[in-house]
């Protein structure tokens, strides 16, 4: 009897097909199957890498974090529940790893303005160049670090608010305050171009994948 049938028989809601595949691959990885591991890495690497990149904003460091995640999976495959999502689990491990790495570089993730901003172009310049998504990216990059991380963890990584607050060492109330300030700041920064942005996005016009590295 295959895995979904077993679950159905046990009264457990069956996981989506991709999750079943991931979990069965994980089972094979647990048995030392290198080929299965290769398939698994190919499937979930982008999610893991992007999770780290959103936090760190540096490609090489994000790659290092992703490699650490897969080393961990290979050496000690996680025991996940049948309904667990390996991709989400791995992305979360990558997020934690990225936050740890960020803390080592900068022990006090403060609410100051970011000291390291992509020097490429400002939001205004990006808008003038017709790159709406680039303008938003620049505005996010210019947020104070904790506001940016609060937004990244809750909005882009989809972490529950309690978990995001724990990662940032703040209360849930403080996290909500950071999120509200982040959204207000973004709107203020992009206010001149707000209608243009909405129209651009409504028409589906944005950069091709990879034009903007952080998110």
């Amino acid at each position: 009897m295959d895995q979904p049938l077993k679950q159905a028989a046990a009264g457990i809601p069956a996981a989506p097909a991709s999750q079943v595949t991931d979990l069965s691959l994980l089972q094979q990885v647990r048995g030392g199957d290198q080929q299965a591991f290769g398939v698994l890495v190919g499937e979930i690497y982008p999610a893991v890498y992007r999770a780290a990149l959103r936090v760190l904003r540096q490609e090489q460091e994000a790659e290092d974090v992703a490699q650490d995640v897969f080393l961990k999976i290979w050496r000690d495959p996680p025991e996940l529940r049948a309904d667990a999502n390996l991709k989400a689990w791995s992305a979360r491990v990558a997020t934690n790893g990225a936050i740890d790495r960020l803390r080592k570089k900068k022990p006090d993730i403060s609410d100051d303005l970011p000291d390291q901003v992509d020097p490429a172009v400002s939001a205004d310049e990006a808008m003038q160049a017709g790159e709406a998504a680039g303008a938003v990216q620049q505005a996010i990059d210019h947020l104070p670090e904790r506001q940016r991380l609060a937004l990244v963890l809750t909005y882009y990584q989809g972490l529950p608010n309690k978990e995001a607050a724990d990662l940032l060492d703040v209360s849930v109330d403080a996290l909500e305050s950071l999120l509200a300030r982040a959204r207000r700041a973004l709107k203020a920064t992009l206010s001149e171009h707000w209608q243009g942005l909405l129209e651009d996005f409504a028409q589906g016009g944005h950069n091709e994948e990879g034009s903007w590295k952080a998110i």
Partner: protein
Amino acid sequence: MSKTAEMKRFKDVLLAYGANPENWPADDHETLRKIASSGGTEVQACLREAREMDAVLNHLPEARVPDGAIDRALAKVMVPPSAPVVDLQAVRAQRSRFRDAIDMRQAIPVGIAMAASLMLGVLAGFSDLTSTYIPDTGTITLASIDEDSAAESLISFEAFTFAEGDVQ
């Protein structure tokens, strides 16, 4: 919670988490969903504003995975456990010190042998010379050096040259 407090919480949640109820805190879900579906003008305005911000945040493209990144990850993970990293400089320095120590060990007995040979040669020569000293003339004749002391000196010389060659 009063209506005013509920409305304030609704606005706070929209401002923090956006208009998608899936992103709202679980504790607030039920109350906020009721407010959202109430259809009041203020509620609709708050929802519209939150949706606009969500639209802006949603339209960022996903970052491209660098070429070869997956292969690099696999290569790092699949690499067999390697031997401990050896510091070649340290090994060379250690080897050099060891060689020096060996040289010193060789030099000490060689030096002792040379010194002993020299002393023996000098003593032998001195005893022969004293026995052949002629007070009257105050000169030393070549004939006074016998064959034994000559052979002794030769052995000392050979020992010296052998030791030199060995060291090199």
